[in-house]
């Protein structure tokens, strides 16, 4: 366990979280190793998004341990965590209505070298180039999701937290996003993915964790097994 | 042998208890009010009561409806002017001139309230302040208000045409009755189904609307009642001091109602009265020190907002209920099941 722990990019142990007085996360623990794609699965309200928020420092109150590259971030501010190389793509995509697409794209500052340049981003997401001057919120759902992922790639962050990127999107767009995510994985990004779409998650993930009522209830270390995936799907739809 | 008397249920006993306590509280309050003019100058006592009505009316909106009406002096002041005018130039007896003043305050409250409620939150407050300033400038320039001098030498007259109110003591007991009427109106508004609806709107406007409550109508009704009681206070004050002046419609006066309520305890019944007593007393003592009153008022605002939001009565309430809270917490701890098998005996 210790070997795995020290080599993990993200090491979460006994994480408790609160929204105000509401205790929403209970002793959540998991690891994400470098270059891996790990998913947090679960029903609505299971605490998946809350876990991502906790890791990004956006939760009211946290207790426990979150090690990012060996550094404790449980008490750090969100902007400090971001500057260490963690990037966040929220569930509602977080596109700014008062900014154009290009301004949205250029907003997150460079925290280190190694981020994608503007040209590389436009190559990965060609339709964003055409819409550069439009108001951010005038894009379609799929385009907004692309924008949300695109802009955190410029910062130089190498660990991504993606919250339900395929939510509410048409199957053909979901396929595109799957392709993007696979390409990002190929480029060496470490990704923690929250998803309700099991089939999508199964296609891209190395490991699954299943959450329910703010607790980790299942861990599937080798995600490719079809039976296990079916099992989770049944369990979640029960 | 069985007793023939009916067994009192615990709920009924508790209700009877509460009613007894209420009657006791009212009795005590009235007793204190009755001896008040013997403890302080009657004129001061009357001033406190008029401002207490003013503060209570503000509290109805701020503490119970969640509406920060920052221009409440408009109703207080305009009633003061109308009463002064009607008593001095139309020869109305005190109860009629006060009614006249209150009526005008109610009409103004309906108009301004309707306008202000078109916006939510902080905009509402800014609108009420601006509308009150409009009233201020109107009173500054209109002929009947006497401009900077105001309306002076207002006769107190004879109550119902028979009881002379010239003496401060006689006037005090009249003011005390008026205060009790106004306070009772507030009390009945708060402790009624309407009061519950009002609190619901305060706590969650959207939720209240989804429950079918016409929040705009509710807010407007509360606004009109509040303006009326404020007017009652202002109208009475004009007869007490036999003067209506611009200070009664100034934004400083509006600020004072807020100060009294926040200091005494917004959302409590007696908080504004306590606040009125303290603030009026402070003004009386510090009047000789010029602008120190303003400075201290500002300091009280800052301290209250930062560290003392419950106000005096609110804090006293909380302290009084602490034993109950402790008892409940102890009970909860006692009844938490221990992780042991039940068949260990």
């Amino acid at each position, binding site marked *: 366990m210790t070997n795995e722990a020290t080599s993990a990019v993200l090491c979460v142990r006994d994480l408790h979280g609160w929204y105000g007085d509401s205790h929403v996360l209970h002793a959540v623990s998991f690891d994400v190793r470098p270059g891996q794609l790990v998913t947090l699965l679960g029903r609505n309200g299971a605490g998946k998004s809350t876990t991502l928020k906790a890791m990004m*420092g*956006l939760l009211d109150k946290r207790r426990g341990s979150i090690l990012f590259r060996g550094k404790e971030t449980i008490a750090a*501010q*969100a*902007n400090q*965590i*971001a500057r260490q190389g963690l*990037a*966040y793509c*929220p569930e509602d995509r*977080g596109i*700014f*209505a*008062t*900014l154009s697409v290009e*301004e949205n794209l*250029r*907003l*997150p*500052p460079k*925290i280190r070298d190694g981020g994608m340049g503007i040209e590389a981003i436009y190559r990965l997401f060609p339709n964003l180039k055409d819409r550069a001057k439009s108001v951010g919120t005038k894009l379609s759902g799929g385009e907004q999701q692309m924008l949300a992922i695109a802009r955190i790639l410029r*910062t130089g962050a190498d660990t991504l937290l993606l919250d339900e990127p395929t939510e509410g999107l048409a199957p053909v767009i979901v396929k595109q996003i799957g392709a993007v995510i696979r390409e990002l994985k190929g480029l060496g990004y470490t990704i923690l993915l929250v998803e309700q779409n099991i089939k999508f998650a199964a296609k891209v993930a190395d490991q699954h964790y299943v959450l329910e009522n703010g607790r980790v209830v299942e861990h599937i270390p080798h995600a490719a097994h079809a039976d296990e995936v079916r099992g989770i799907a049944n369990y979640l739809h029960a | 042998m069985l007793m023939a008397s009916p067994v009192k249920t615990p709920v009924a006993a508790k209700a009877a208890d509460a009613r007894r306590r209420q009657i006791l509280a009212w009795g005590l309050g009235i007793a204190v009010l009755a001896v008040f003019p013997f403890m302080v100058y009657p004129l001061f006592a009357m001033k406190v009561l008029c401002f207490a009505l003013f503060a209570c009316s503000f509290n109805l909106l*701020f503490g119970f409806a*969640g509406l*920060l009406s*920052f221009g409440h002096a408009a109703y207080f002041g305009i009633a003061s002017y109308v009463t002064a005018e009607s008593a001095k130039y139309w020869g109305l007896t005190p109860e009629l001139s006060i009614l006249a003043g209150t009526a005008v305050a109610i009409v103004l409250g309906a108009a301004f309230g309707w*306008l202000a409620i*078109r*916006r*939510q*939150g*902080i*905009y509402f*407050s*800014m*609108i009420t*302040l*601006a*509308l009150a*300033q*409009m009233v201020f*400038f109107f009173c*500054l*320039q209109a002929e009947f208000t006497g401009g900077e001098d105001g309306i002076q030498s207002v006769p107190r007259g004879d109550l119902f045409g028979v009881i002379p109110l010239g003496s401060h003591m006689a006037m005090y007991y009249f003011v005390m009755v008026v205060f009790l009427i106004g306070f009772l109106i507030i009390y009945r508004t708060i402790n009624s189904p309407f009061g519950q609806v009002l609190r619901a709107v305060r706590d969650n406007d959207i939720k209240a609307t989804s429950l079918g409550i016409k929040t705009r109508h509710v807010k407007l009704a509360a606004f009109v009642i509040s303006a009326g009681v404020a007017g009652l206070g202002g109208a009475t004050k004009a007869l007490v001091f036999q003067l209506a002046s611009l200070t009664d419609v100034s934004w400083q006066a509006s*600020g004072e109602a*807020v100060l009294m309520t*926040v200091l005494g305890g917004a959302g409590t019944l007696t908080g504004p009265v306590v606040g009125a007593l303290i603030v009026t007393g402070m003004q009386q003592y510090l009047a000789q020190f*010029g*602008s*120190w009153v*303003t*400075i201290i*008022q*500002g300091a009280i*605002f*800052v301290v*209250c*907002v*930062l560290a003392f*939001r419950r106000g005096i009565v609110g804090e006293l309430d909380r302290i009084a209920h602490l034993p109950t809270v402790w008892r409940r917490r102890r009970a909860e701890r006692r009844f938490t099941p221990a992780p042991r098998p039940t068949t260990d005996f």
Partner: protein
Amino acid sequence: MHNLMDTLSNLSIDAFMGQLMLGLINGAFYAMLSLGLALIFGMLNIVNFVHGAQYMLGAMLAWILLQTLGINYWVSLLLAPFIVGAFGLLLERFVLRRVYALDPAYGLLLTFGIALLLEGSFRQKLGSSGQPYAIPAELRGGWDLGFMYMPTYRAWVLIASITICFAVWYVFERTRLGSYLRAATEKPQLVRAFGIDVSKMINLTYGLGVALAAVAGVLAAPIYQVSPLMGSNIIIVVFAVVVIGGLGSMSGAIVSGFLVGFVEGLTKVFYPAASSTVVFVLMACVLLVKPAGLFGRRA
């Protein structure tokens, strides 16, 4: 109507334009102050009631600096906003920050209290009456334009205020820094998650808004008397301007400010008794027709 015909027949172009110019000057101050309020409200979600007092502080500081240290107008124009702005930075950092989580009403009450503190303190030391502040020598006199006489100082105020308003608007709407401010106004938590210290941004924005008020104060000193009451007199009018224009828009604040000043000037010509109330009547009309404000984005 009879009065109106009288007025029109007695009207000279000179007087008419002169009055309009005065109105526009007032409008310039309304614009600068409501711009500052809009900036602060956008980032902090607080109605900065003490804005009027900070405007007064700017003027007071200019007067005090001149009286005690002989520091002239031009230096004060830079120094006063700097000092008052610094005071604003401290105020936000140590006092205002504590009420962000509360109902916005408390922000209004807190800043109201601070305004009382400031105004009361100055009134205690200096009394309520106004002190004159001399127009700097370079800006005295004026030009005869034929249809009116244009005092140099007033032309300066117009130019300076329009420039300042435009500069602030431009930075906010068209620059990269502005995009950060706009983003932080919209979704502060997400901007934090991008690595930006939003708290520091909020702090600096408040300081800037306060400095804006102070600059307006220095500009105002030679025109209106420098008095401890000048802040509270103007802040309530600015509130009405802000309701008319809507707090959500920078350009709305600027345009509404000048518009109200212009209307005030017009009213002074045709119906002088109403000139102090016309802004509130205008506000009432806007509320009837377009409750969100003329340029309102947030209802």
